[in-house]
């Protein structure tokens, strides 16, 4: 697969500042990085491209010493090194600017820049004048007009990014990792960031630029590396490639996952959403959903899919829009309201939003259905166990006992508990947000199988997913969201990986 790597090394006689060889990193049930290699050269920008979950974030964590790889070598200036801790990585001159900047709002700009390596006076105290002087010098160097004495909380996001970059430069970084730095910036701020990247290049820094946006990759990067499913599937000079080729590499050709074979029998329209708007998160979302249908919602992380689903479920309040359920206009004021009316939401983040890990399995399953298992206000234990057993058995949950705490279950089984909980409420519409994120392949197949069964029984499913194979394999129809708006509506017949990626990234259709 390393098609062009020979050509690359011959044109750049420089030794890479940082080189990863055959790096692997696994988590229980998931191989996040599988034998990946990456070289970063001084004075060059390398773009790292890949779908959500391709392993980019894991790579950044390996590069910055937060994760220790299971195998492979890290070379700095051609010599083998190990990053045991984050300090090792920063000593080697690797610094990262994260999606959400990790800075301190209640400290001044100068303190943020020098936190942890502040200049000291002769008596071991903070050398404030020098800290201010040095901060100003670094900020000037990157062309940022920011007063070092200002509190960080008084700055906008773009300026905070600049402070993060200044901090990176203050430790004399040679490798700068930028993890989707433009995600939250406006157009003019993005332009300023590009200029800054040019300046860093001119200073001879090696830059790893992680981005979803093809236009900016082609604008500022010299090289590219494409990840897919934890593997490196291509690398080379951007001058030798095209958008089409990159998209092809990103989505791949192989469909090795098997999805349930289903011939959907679609019934009447169950749910209709019209003109759903939110002041900051999404705009004008409208669609219909029929009985027995699986509607996929695809988009990049941060496209506003989950935010929309939360509004649909009554967690947040939309500014405009209507919901029609079974031909009747309804208002959803709270999650309890939504559950009563037959709309349920299985959130993405199991740990945070899904299961209550300190409670046993049966209590998790029955939590939204307590009214049904109560008589005159008192819970009926026998009834409760019956309900819990019915739905956990249906999901084929393998657990020793129903009174086991959910915290002791594996990720896949926790997901089953959460889904069982919602099925027990007997909904009409079930919203599954990233239903198979972070669970092993076997559990994934079981969840897919089950989703197909639910649809066949007449339940309407909305599936939010960032995994292209899952979207392609499960959906009857797909809505692609980008930056809070619907970017495309695709029928099953029109679905292709390229189309999804293009719509989500905002690339014009190829002629």
């Amino acid at each position, binding site marked *: 697969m390393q098609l062009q790597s020979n050509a690359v090394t011959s044109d750049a006689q420089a030794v890479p500042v940082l080189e990863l060889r055959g790096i692997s990193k696994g988590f229980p049930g998931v191989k996040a990085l599988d034998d990946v290699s990456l070289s970063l050269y001084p004075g060059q920008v390398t773009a790292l491209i890949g779908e959500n979950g391709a392993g980019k974030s894991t790579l950044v964590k390996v590069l910055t010493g937060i994760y220790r790889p299971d195998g492979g070598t890290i070379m700095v200036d051609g010599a083998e090194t190990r990053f045991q801790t984050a300090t090792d990585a920063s000593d080697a001159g690797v610094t990262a600017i994260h999606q959400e900047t990790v800075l301190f709002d209640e400290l001044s700009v100068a303190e943020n820049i020098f936190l942890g390596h502040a200049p000291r006076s002769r008596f071991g105290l903070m050398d404030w004048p020098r800290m201010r002087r040095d901060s100003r010098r670094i900020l000037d160097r990157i062309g940022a007009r920011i007063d070092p004495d200002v509190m960080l909380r008084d700055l906008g996001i773009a300026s905070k990014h600049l402070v993060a970059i200044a901090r990176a430069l203050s430790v004399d970084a040679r490798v700068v990792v930028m993890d989707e730095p433009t995600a939250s910036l406006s157009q003019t701020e993005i332009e300023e960031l590009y200029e800054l990247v040019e300046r860093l290049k001119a200073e001879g820094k090696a830059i790893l630029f992680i981005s979803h946006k093809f236009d900016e990759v082609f604008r500022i990067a010299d090289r590219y590396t494409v990840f897919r499913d934890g593997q490196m599937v291509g690398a080379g000079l951007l001058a030798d490639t095209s958008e089409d080729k990159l998209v092809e590499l990103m989505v791949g050709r192989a469909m090795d996952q098997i999805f349930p074979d289903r011939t959907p029998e679609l019934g009447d329209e169950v749910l209709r959403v019209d003109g759903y708007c939110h002041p900051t998160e999404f705009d004008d979302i409208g669609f219909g959903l029929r009985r027995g249908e699986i509607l996929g919602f695809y988009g990049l992380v941060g496209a506003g899919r989950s935010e929309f689903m939360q509004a649909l479920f009554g967690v947040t309040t939309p500014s405009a829009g209507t919901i029609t359920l079974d031909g009747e206009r309804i208002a959803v004021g709270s999650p309890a309201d939504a559950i009563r009316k037959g709309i349920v939401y299985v959130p993405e983040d199991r740990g945070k939003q899904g299961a209550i890990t300190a409670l046993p399995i049966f*209590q998790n399953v029955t939590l939204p259905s307590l009214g049904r298992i109560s008589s005159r206000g008192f819970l009926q234990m026998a009834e409760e166990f019956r309900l819990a057993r019915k739905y956990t058995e249906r999901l084929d949950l393998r657990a020793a006992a129903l009174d086991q705490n959910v915290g002791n279950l594996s990720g896949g089984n926790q997901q089953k508990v959460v889904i069982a909980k919602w099925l027990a409420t007997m909904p009409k519409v079930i919203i599954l947000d990233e239903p198979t994120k972070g669970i092993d392949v076997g559990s994934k197949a079981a969840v897919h199988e089950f989703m197909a069964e639910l649809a066949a029984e007449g339940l309407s499913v909305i599936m939010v997913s960032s995994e292209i194979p899952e979207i392609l394999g499960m959906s009857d129809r797909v809505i692609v969201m980008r930056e809070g708006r619907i970017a495309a509506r695709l029928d099953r017949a029109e679905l292709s990986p390229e189309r999804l990626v293009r719509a989500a990234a905002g690339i014009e259709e190829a002629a």
Partner: protein
Amino acid sequence: MITEFLKSREAILLAALVALILLVETRFAGFAAPSNMVDVFNDTSILIILALGQMAVILTKCIDLSLASNLALTGMVVATINAAAPGVPVAALILLAIALGMVLGAFNGILVWKLDIPPIVVTLGTLTIYRGIIFLISEGAWINAHEMSAAFKAFPRAEFLTLPVLSWIALAIIALFVVLIGRTGLGRAFYAVGGNPHAAVYTGISVGFTRFAAFVIAGGLAGLCGYLWVSRYAVAYVDVAGGFELDVVAACVIGGISIAGGIGTVGGAVLGALFLGVIKNALPVAGISPFWQLAISGAAIIIAVAFNARSERTKGRVILKSAEHAT
């Protein structure tokens, strides 16, 4: 079932309690005698009732520091009424005390629910406010035994089937809590809200209302204890039960109620209160100096917290693994 109980926190606490009682017995013969145990339980009754109320609040990831002030204020109100109008039946005063306590609790709850102020800040504020109101009502004066009616003072001391009414009330509240916590949707909601507030929201549970309900319940119990306290000790003044809110929190912590919310049992809260009650009762009679009494109570709290932190840590590790999964 039995082996499971033996491994539980409650069993260990029970063992520690028994060991403590036997230890005191070696210094002070007769301490472990049934009649004395009944006295200790009776002395600890108010602490038990308040600890149960506090437990409901702590389960929801909140804390109520105003319970002792609530107790003192309601106690002063019912004592004042009794002194001014001895004809008002005691039953009416008890109901009034509970109702007033619930109102004071509801005030905390509303601030936490609707204004989203951290509970520790809210109740730290009301702790002072409620005490201040006592001063306004009494103008700093005491209401002494001779100003209270005989019926007012006699009720908690009256014996019924060999136990004082005060003890019976504590037992009744314990029974009530076993049902509330174990058998009602609200009890379940306490655990859900404290265990994982985000998940509770998605389950259709109103986090704010559940917390409000916990504060109202705790307030009502504090009100009840207000009557019990002033009638039992036959005195009401501004500083009644001063600092007692910390004993209540300590009882919960010793009893294994997680300050982080979502973990804890009725049995734990009761045992925690009894443990503290035994220390407070036994150490003076065993001739241990007041300094050591404080130090021993403090040590018990720290040991309990360290122990609970250890037993909760294993759970944390499993959660972390699934979090890693997700990245």
